[in-house]
């Protein structure tokens, strides 16, 4: 309530600063809670307790981990390209956080750009480039292999992702995310476009590099891929990147398909966060269940299944709704 009043009453620079701070608090909150929730959920599905000692229910476990990671010495391999290797992870983190800022959080919070959807996905396609730079610059065979694998995977799954988004934009008639959410006031898009939702969900899992698509950090094959050689603070940045990408992905899924912030009684931002958490828990359950995919099966799945499905989805949407 305080935040809402502050927003309504201020405008200009003051409002911008308040929005920046508020959304940053949301990002940090989601990252922290998602880390805790993921460990507890996976533990519960495996008949065990998760973290329980540090704080009540282990809530301070992530804090303890971050403090430990930041307090260690940074070690860099001698064969690595120092400039790129030091600069690329923070740049990636900055990119992802910037992308979160481009999404609207409610009718009043967050910016609302007329080409918002397009802008988000154009910028999102920079992420594979950064990941490749990180992997290739560490001078290590395992990182090089994992970098090339992740580039292949991102290439194969970008196109179905964009086509699914195009289906949504086609129906809504605009690229403005605020408009798209407000159009879902009566029926969320998941009901109207189930195939589009499926394609978007799977392609988003591949972009987020979450199981079953976690080739990059395949820790029983490549011994944690690019994370083999990173120093301790960079590992903390890697964790942040992973969780913030999850935040971005679940926000996108809930904004585009699950009618974003629309819901009764509670403030709009709370609804959006609740839906993002539910999507995140579903992704965690998928992580606990599946076996890792092999790279050729992954490409076959992307090119021969998802791409035709997404094209079919666009044609169907066009015929049924737009004409």
């Amino acid at each position, binding site marked *: 309530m305080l935040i809402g009043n502050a927003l309504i009453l201020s405008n200009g620079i003051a409002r911008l600063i308040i929005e920046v701070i508020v959304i940053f608090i949301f990002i940090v909150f989601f990252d922290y809670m998602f880390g805790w929730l993921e460990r507890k959920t996976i533990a519960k599905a495996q008949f065990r307790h998760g973290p329980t000692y540090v704080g009540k229910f282990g809530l301070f476990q992530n804090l303890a981990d971050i403090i430990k990671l930041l307090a260690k010495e940074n070690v860099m391999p001698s064969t690595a390209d120092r400039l790129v290797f030091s600069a690329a992870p923070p740049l990636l983190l900055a990119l992802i956080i910037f992308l979160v800022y481009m999404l609207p959080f409610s009718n009043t919070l967050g910016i609302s750009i007329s080409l918002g959807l397009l802008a988000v996905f154009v910028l999102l396609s920079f992420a594979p480039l950064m990941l490749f730079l990180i992997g290739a610059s560490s001078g290590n*065979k395992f990182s090089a292999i994992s970098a090339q694998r992740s580039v292949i995977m991102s290439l194969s799954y970008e196109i179905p992702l964009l086509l699914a988004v195009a289906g949504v934009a086609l129906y809504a008639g605009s690229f403005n995310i605020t408009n798209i959410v407000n159009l879902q006031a009566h029926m969320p898009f998941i009901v109207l476009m189930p195939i589009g939702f499926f394609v978007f969900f799977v392609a988003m899992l591949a972009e987020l590099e979450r199981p079953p698509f976690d080739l990059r950090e395949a820790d029983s094959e490549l011994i944690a891929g690019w994370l083999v050689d990173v120093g301790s603070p960079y590992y903390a940045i890697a964790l942040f990147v992973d969780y913030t990408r999850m935040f971005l992905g679940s926000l996108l899924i809930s904004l585009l398909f699950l009618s974003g912030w629309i819901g009764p009684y509670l403030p709009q931002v709370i609804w959006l966060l609740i839906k993002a958490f539910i999507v995140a828990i579903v992704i965690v359950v998928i992580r606990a269940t599946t076996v890792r995919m092999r790279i050729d099966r992954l490409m076959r799945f992307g090119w021969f299944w998802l791409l035709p499905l997404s094209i079919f989805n666009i044609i169907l949407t066009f015929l049924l709704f737009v004409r």
Partner: protein
Amino acid sequence: MLTKINVGPIHPSTHGVLRLVVTLDGDTIVNVEPHIGFLHRGVEKLAENRMYMQNESYMEKIDYAAPMAYSDLYVAALEEAMGIQTKERAKYVRLILLEFQRIASHLLWLGTFCNDLGQMFTMFMWTMKDRDLILNLLQDVTGSRMFYVNMRLGGVSIDLPPNFEEHAKKLLDYLEKRLKEYEVYLEKNPIFIERTKNVGTLKRNDAIELGVTGPVLRASGVNFDVRRDYSYYVYDKLHFIPQVQTRGDVFARYRVRMLEMRESIKLIRDALKSMPEGDALGMPVKLISPPVKESEVKVRRELPRGEGMIFMVADKQRPYRLSIRAPAFINLSSLRQIAIGERYADLFAILGSLDLVMADVDR
């Protein structure tokens, strides 16, 4: 262009310490060279300086996934050397405990196999829970969860407690239910099927020539099982059937072990029903061992990993030479034949399906 990758001794795929030098051409494996010996403790030499019954504890530590099987193999060799017959009830008791040990070993294998494929420890935790229940049952019988030391000359050290039968039956029902769930969990997962079918095929003739035994051999279509062909204890009375699959790939080895677990459950049920009353206790341990009648003995048993054999030259109070055929060592030597021509990502699925325990390989 050939690259050499060192899959080093420290290895997240929980097999123990194994170093593989893999030569790759792009993504295809051209050569695999295992370097072993990191866990060699010289068990065979240690055994030469200990008296007979002191060795039993060392034999168990060769295979830490199924210790009772090795202990039984050793005591059987001793019994043959000293000319001691196993008591009738003791045969049944040993069979029941060994088959429980086999189920526990296969459950451990299932968990680590799914870990290798990329599962995030879920299957591992579930199978560990079931294995833990079996170990609790064995703890009630023998007093220890892992290194039992309960085999004695002519029988066992402590007989089954009075409520063993009902606990065992409850556990067997639970295990049957869980095995069905595991099969659904894995076989209805198309990614698992894709990663295990037609991967790492071992043809029938190659399997026989390389000398592999156990589930790896039976998955390639060879119908050989020590429990039926060189039968011991009461396996012939209980109508034991070896489980055979013909395709020889990773999926077939997985199927053989799941079916073997089912078969073990059936064997335990039959043994519990037909077990005679009587005395199952063997000779207690004394400072002087019984006299040795035969000085060269050879005994074979079906361990969960394959066929284990002991060739012993027996001296008066201690073995003069103890030679152990460890099944995992021979199975590892077939890795090169299987893995050449496969993709690199499949190497770990193949390694997982061979069911290696490095302590068994290195002894």
